[in-house]
């Protein structure tokens, strides 16, 4: 099984979103995948990165390390986000009730729900002062 690894370190600010998306697109550019898969991965990456940019470092500037591992058997990408901000497990939050009418629906909470629904695996751990969130998606 072959693996290609990619790594990006950058400031956790939403202005860097496009750079993060480009990094992910470059990571999978030599693989076979549908436009739908790319959109799902892009959304998941955006939601997670923006979450970190908004909440991880409330009173200072901080960095995010993003590691992408692209494997070929089966074709898949695993993306890990590491920050050293305040401990926060986004998976601990209850899913929004998506059956409610527009007037009763809450505006927030959708992002991480999308991540959970579109990725094949999502995991979180807090280790040595770092939030470590990994998403995996089979490339098809």
């Amino acid at each position, binding site marked *: 099984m072959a693996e290609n690894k990619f790594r990006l370190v950058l400031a956790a600010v*939403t202005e860097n979103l496009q750079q993060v998306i480009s990094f992910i697109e470059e990571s999978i550019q030599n693989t076979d995948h549908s436009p739908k898969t790319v*959109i799902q991965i892009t959304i998941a990456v955006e939601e997670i990165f923006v979450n970190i940019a908004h909440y991880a470092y409330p009173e200072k500037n901080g960095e995010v390390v993003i590691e992408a591992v692209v494997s070929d058997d089966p074709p898949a990408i695993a993306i890990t986000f590491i920050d050293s901000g305040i401990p926060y497990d986004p998976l601990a939050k209850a899913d929004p009730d*998506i059956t409610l009418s*527009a007037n009763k629906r809450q505006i927030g909470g*959708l*992002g991480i729900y999308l991540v959970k629904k*579109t990725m094949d695996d999502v995991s979180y751990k807090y280790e040595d002062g770092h939030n470590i969130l990994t998403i995996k998606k089979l490339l098809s």
Partner: protein
Amino acid sequence: MNIKISKIEKKTIIEVSGRVDTVAAPKFEAAVKEQITDAEELVIDMDKLEYISSAGLRVLLWAQKTMTDRGDMKLINVHENVMEILEITGFSEILKIKQGGS
């Protein structure tokens, strides 16, 4: 992201194209807010929309909440990739959607 607005009497059509991500969503929100003040019917044309993240979905939800009291809102020309996002989030159940388009 680009936004084009046309008005036919009380009907306002907002044509949103490109990518509505976290960075672009505030501009989308501002455009919708500005148009929504006197619209009785709001149509959002998504024919050229390539991508929408939760930041964009929040704007749609907010617009729907506002328009519920006042009139009608619908999304038109929604393509498959965007439609799937709307389905996963349950938005396809609470928004009026017309699929397809060129």
